[in-house]
């Protein structure tokens, strides 16, 4: 009897220890992209520890399903994904191999950040791959609209509070603070770009649709003839002609695309190639979600002034 009670009390103690450990330690969050990681750490602060799988300077469509990511996912308590089929080529096998019931699609620790945001480019008619690598669920580069950043943060805060109810008040307070700072920053960025509303630009891929929409730019063409299809001579010629005809001077390129074609378009039209990081960490200066837009808006303003002076 004596021994039994000792064992049972030891077991109880173990149970308490096991239960106490996760509460004391930070919630382990894994995100697919660095932008989501930046937003999670804005909301979670020191209550979470965040790891992003893809780097900011990497094309998020073409991340490799490395086994080292399996190890990261294996320990995750929450997985936040961009969704809209952005990660379809690499994430599903990683989740299956993670051996982690918490982050399987549909489980409590799986959050698709696109559920509450404003999605553009949702195809209305039938979709075929004759149009290239189209995303039938809409444009997945939605985090480049800073107001969507606030919406992502709200989803993240709700999920964090669900998983870690003890800190719900902290998350709510941090979310309110983030949204307040973001609103002020959005006002500033929009103010800076307001004089150039309707400015026509070319982008390499359809990754800047939400950015253009948020800041009143008008994307009149793409260096890629179709999403995911590399530039062709005829299409490049068409882009040059369109730029000349419509007085377009700026070509926005993501850092992971080859600059050869954009440079030759710029040289032929007197335009300027602007390498803008689409994600946090794309360049060292874009260290968080605010600095990403600070950097991009700053570069865009400088380019507008430079091309206008010509």
């Amino acid at each position, binding site marked *: 009897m004596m021994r039994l009670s000792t064992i049972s009390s030891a077991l109880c103690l173990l149970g308490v220890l096991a239960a106490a450990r996760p509460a004391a330690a930070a919630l382990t969050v894994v995100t697919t992209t660095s932008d989501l990681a930046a937003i999670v750490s804005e909301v979670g602060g020191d209550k979470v520890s965040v790891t992003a799988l893809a*780097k900011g*300077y*990497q*094309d998020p469509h*073409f*991340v*490799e*399903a*490395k*086994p*080292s990511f*399996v*190890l990261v996912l*294996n320990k995750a308590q929450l997985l936040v994904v961009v969704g809209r*089929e952005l990660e*379809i*080529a*690499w*994430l*599903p*096998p990683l*989740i*299956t*191999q*993670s*051996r*982690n*019931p918490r982050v*399987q*699609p*549909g*489980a409590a620790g799986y959050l698709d950040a696109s559920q509450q945001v404003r999605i553009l480019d949702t195809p209305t008619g039938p979709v075929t*791959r004759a149009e*290239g*690598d189209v995303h039938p669920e809409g444009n997945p580069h939605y985090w480049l609209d800073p107001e969507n950043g606030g919406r992502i943060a709200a989803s993240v805060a709700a999920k964090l509070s669900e998983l870690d109810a003890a800190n719900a008040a902290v998350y709510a307070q941090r979310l309110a603070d983030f949204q307040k700072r973001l609103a002020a920053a959005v006002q500033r960025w929009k103010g800076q770009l307001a004089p150039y509303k309707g400015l026509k630009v070319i982008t390499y891929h359809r990754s800047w649709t939400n950015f253009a929409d948020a800041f009143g730019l008008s994307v009149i063409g793409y260096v890629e003839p179709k999403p*995911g*299809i*590399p530039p062709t001579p005829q299409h490049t010629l068409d882009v040059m002609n369109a730029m000349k005809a419509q007085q377009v001077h700026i070509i926005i390129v993501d*850092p*992971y*695309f*080859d600059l050869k074609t954009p440079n030759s378009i710029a040289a032929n039209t007197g335009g300027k190639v602007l390498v803008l990081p689409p994600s946090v960490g794309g360049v060292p200066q874009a260290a968080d979600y605010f600095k990403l837009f600070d950097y991009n808006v700053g570069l865009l303003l400088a380019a507008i002034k430079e091309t206008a002076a010509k």
Partner: protein
Amino acid sequence: MRYGFRWARVAVLMAIVAGLCGRAYGGQQASPPPEPQAQDVAALRATIEQLRQQLDALERKVAALEAATPPAAPAPAPEAPAPAPAPAPQAAAPAEPAVPMPAPQPATAGASGSKVFNPDMAVIGNFVGAAGSNTFDPRPALALDEAEVSLQAIVDPYARADFFLSGSPDGIEVEEGFITFPALPGGLLVKVGKMKAQFGKVNTQHAHVLPWVDEPLPMRNLLGGDEGLNDSGISVSRLIPNKLLFLEATGEVYDGNNGVFASHERSDLTYVGRLHGYRDVSEGSNIDLGTSYAYGHNDAGLHTNTQLFGADATFRYRPLRRAIYQRFLARTELFWSKREMGDLGPRQDAFGAYLTGEYQFARRWIAGARYDWSDRATDASLRDTSGSFLLTYWPSEFSQIRGQYRRTSYAEGVDANEVLFQFLFAIGAHGAHAF
């Protein structure tokens, strides 16, 4: 107290039952006395007959309507046949829809409702042509080598399922069909079904993800050809936690009739084990190492067995900033086969290997080379040797065109010089990229 409560419940129940019985009984009593039974039955029969005729007429009408209207048009209301006849017995055959039905859902909405749960579906065509001479092991000049249909979906909160049906000139077969339980306790990943055994690298890959048109010689000579080790069984794998690297151990049991194995009785199972390690060297490069083992009975005799040993090493380089333009992969796999020959002779210890490299030098272009050699499993004194150069062009993620120059020296003294070319094309769901 407790008894009292129970009795009270029983009493209430009895009261309810009594009440119900009473009502039913009373109801019967209230109905008119059942004297003209025969008449009633006849009348009922007549009514039923009438109703049946009306139903038949309606059914014919519905069939005619269905044939006449193109299926795409929104379904007209009278297509819902069931409820119509009952309330309107008077109206004769040209029964207009008595009550306007709620506005029919557009056909597409209904269809997509059911499509939501359809599995992700894709079809991959693998068309292979061959030119040049090969008198020893000739391929057809032109052939749709394989049409692979993949069907993949999540089964329930506990499992997902993958089916790969392969249509080839030999017919259609289930190449793989298995259920995966990714959310088991103890960090286990369990697969049950027909699947490619986790033996080395090439054996686990489908033909369309291989970097070559053909398979290297050891696959053909030691692992049983196109199929390789692919059988019905159970696979259990687990991560081995450690600070240094990704380490995964896999144990599998198979029925025992596949590739080089042959089962003579139910207990003649095949066992496969694999240890797989992986480590990032830098953010753009990594090393992948594995060892594999397989044991099972063979067809040389009733009690003869074959043991296979494998080792594989891969080095990958893919700079993250230029991931869509540049990558390099070097790989080698070694295979040892120990095959007991029973009455046919002494045990045959055969060895085979390949060395390959591929380099993507532009967004759409990959160049590669391979050197492979292998003894024959049944006669280790015979060794085939082959060398290949490859060039692959990717118009998009969903199609590729590949050429391979291959020179093979067969043990019999036959030399073959061939050019193989391949068109791969995929439609349907966007599958995951192989790693």
